[in-house]
């Protein structure tokens, strides 16, 4: 009886995920820049973005990715990301990201997304539901905005288990990841074009591109 119920639940979950039940889409372009050149990029962004008369906004977040797996299935059924701002009194953010759309004509990567603010009990709650830790990292960097576009320049930092958090600052690579994203309701087609134009303006410094995640997973 219980198994049958479980089966129904997983079926309806996968059906919901397939049918794009979420109203919001995330448009995303990504790129990276070396540590040595990031200063130039910051100058460029200061010139392009909205009200940066004050110093750029910094952030320092911990992201934990939790997955729900079915027994004897290699692919996780559902991945959820929990992100919290370190050293700041802000609610946790739970984030679901859908599979990227396959449409090659779009200038940006498009995927459905869902954001939700949570209390700090969310991690325990997810573990109780059967979610297991997939990976975690710290992102630290700067944030800009231009209209509805959000630009983050972040350094990804590895978490070394068993060490004091402050001591274990070990960056994953010698570069910063640059992300340009817009979360918009479905049916706004000009977002991608707007983002492409903006990405064009950062061109020689950083190449913001549509990353094909399927190709990345095939790399052994």
């Amino acid at each position, binding site marked *: 009886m219980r198994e049958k119920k479980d089966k129904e639940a997983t079926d309806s979950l996968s059906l919901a995920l397939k049918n794009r039940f979420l109203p919001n889409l995330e448009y995303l372009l990504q790129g990276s820049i070396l540590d040595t050149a990031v200063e130039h990029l910051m100058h460029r962004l200061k010139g392009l973005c909205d*009200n940066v008369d004050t110093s750029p906004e910094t952030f320092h977040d911990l992201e934990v990715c939790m997955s729900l797996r079915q027994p004897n299935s290699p692919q996780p059924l559902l991945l959820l990301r929990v992100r919290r701002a370190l050293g700041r009194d*802000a*609610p*946790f953010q739970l984030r679901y990201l859908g599979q990227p759309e396959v449409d090659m004509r779009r200038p940006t990567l498009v995927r459905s997304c869902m954001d939700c603010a*949570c209390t700090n009990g969310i991690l325990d709650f997810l573990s109780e539901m059967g979610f297991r830790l997939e990976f975690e990292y710290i992102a630290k960097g700067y*944030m800009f905005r231009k209209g509805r576009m959000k630009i983050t320049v972040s350094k990804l930092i590895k978490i070394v288990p068993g060490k004091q958090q402050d001591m274990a600052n070990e960056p994953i690579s010698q570069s910063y990841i640059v992300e340009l994203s817009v979360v918009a309701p479905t049916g706004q087609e000009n977002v991608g074009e707007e983002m492409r134009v903006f990405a064009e303006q950062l061109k020689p410094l950083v190449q913001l591109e549509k990353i094909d995640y399927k190709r990345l997973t095939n790399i052994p």
Partner: protein
Amino acid sequence: MSNSVNISVETTCENQIREIAYDGTELYQAPPTLSESLAKCAARIDFSKTSLDDLKKEEKSAAAATEDDKDANQFQESLWPWDAVRNKLKDAYTEICVLSDVISIAKDKRYLVLDPLLEDGDDTKPIVQVYSRKKAISQAAQVLLSGAERLRNAHSEQRSRNVSDFHIELLRLRQNWRLKKVSNGAIIGDLSYRTAGSKFGMSGTFEVTKAEEALDDDGAGNSANASSGASNSSTNNGMQLKASSALRVIVPAELQGVAYIKVITQKDQEDLCTAQVNLMGHGPNITAQVGVWQKTLEFAQNVLFCKELFAQLAREAIQLQAPIPHVVIGNQIRATLLPNIQLIISLCHSTSFDSSQPAPINDHDHVLEHSLHQLLREVHFKNSHHPFPHPASAPLGPSKKRMIAGPTAADREALLDMTKTQTILEQIIAQAQHIFMRKRTQYVLDTLARDVKDPQIVSHWNAMNSPTMSCVKINIVTHGYDAIGRTSLVIHVKERSLKCICRDGRVMRLSYEPQELRDLILCQINSHQISCLVSLARYMAWTVLSNSNHLGIGKVEPLGNASSCLLGSPNSDRMIAVQIRCDPQIDVKVYIARSPRPDFFPSPLVPEKFWENLGGNFKEVRFDKIEGKSFLNKMEFLMASLTSNTA
């Protein structure tokens, strides 16, 4: 030349003209195809470019020998375009073959030995070299000198004519205003507040042009007239200034002129408080350093500002659901603040510069003007400054309050509260109402303080207050008896109501009617007098038999009523009864009674003297005839005289 300019050179895209017909039509040569142009380029390669001249000579002699044979070949050469190239490559191939043979032989060192050639010295004489260098240097010097001369000329001319340079002016303009060059070479500027967060639709573009010579001459003529004429009014001065500027700004017609927003609060056609809003006279005056266009642009920007403010207010006036609806007619918005009192906001825009300015308003309210400015700026600021989300993945847009609404389980009411924002008009109305309430309260307190001499009413207004709330502390004291008692109360003046907090902790809310405040203060005076009298009586060893702050006679007010007290002399043979009423005015009544009369004559009804202790008849004292400056002073005298009589 560190600041040299890169010049790119390109061929013209046009084809060559092959033929011009009699009617003038030009026939173009078709552009060469790729293979044709390749062949053309290949034919252009100079294979004979080699340093070994003697080798060439040798070749030529060899070629002369075989010329007769080649004649036949050359005839065919024109048929096939690659022939020349092929021949040359073939020659080169032959040469390479020979060279490789020679090298292979020389490697053996048996038949051939390679020796370095003796270089014969440079045959150019040093004296020739010196001459040529001297000539080259003198030519360069000539170029530099002529350039310097030209610069000096231009500089001196500018100084002598005192005409400002267009480009210098443009540079100054660029330092203060947003400019951009558009495709057809024109320069367009933007004076709108869009970059500061405004969402007003009207365009604020202006065009920058070079002032024409004709205008210059005109201006010069005018200035000459002005100097010759006796009058040197400011308009003429302006013209003179205009003539000296090499730069002209063209502002769209709807932004020309002078504009201001006039705010009037009116009661039955009588202006109570007015304010004029515009941008003029704010910020540093830099016209003297930059040019007249600064003034023109400032005026235009001011017009834009006023129009935006007014448009915003008009839109809100129509949307707002007020109990008495706001009226928008033409350039005027009317809103009712309090009964009979109206707020009129009007946009005044005159296109002619020299139109007679309205008479200066004596009762200009700077605070209201300032808040109008501040409100619009605040809207602009909120439009452009959104808070950044934390953590960084959170969506952009919702405020911090909205973000924590979910985790803190905010209810529907709290969420609805978040969506409510006060519009500019609402805030202005609230502020105007408050200004009005404050004035009314001040007036009531001042007239009462003037009319009521005893006790004294002292009001202290807080210097720090918000646009919609101020605070006044009122002390009621009797001169000379300050130590005996003091009644103090605090009044919070809000938008449409007053809140009074008394010493005893009572909180009363009053409406905007001034009569209510007046009644309250009068009642407070009553109770002040009685409470002071009670303490004074104690000092003088009189006993307080009873006292009441609310007698409940006359008009019963919620705020207070007539008050009274009954005092007994130290040896209890006399009583004083005091009643203070405040119905229309403060009215004091004092009665005295003597219980055992000094002269007792027994009668059949009252046989014994002790019956007299039951109390006697009260007789009213003509209080106004008693010596003394104030009520307490008079009472003191009265008590003292009654006490001494018994001694």
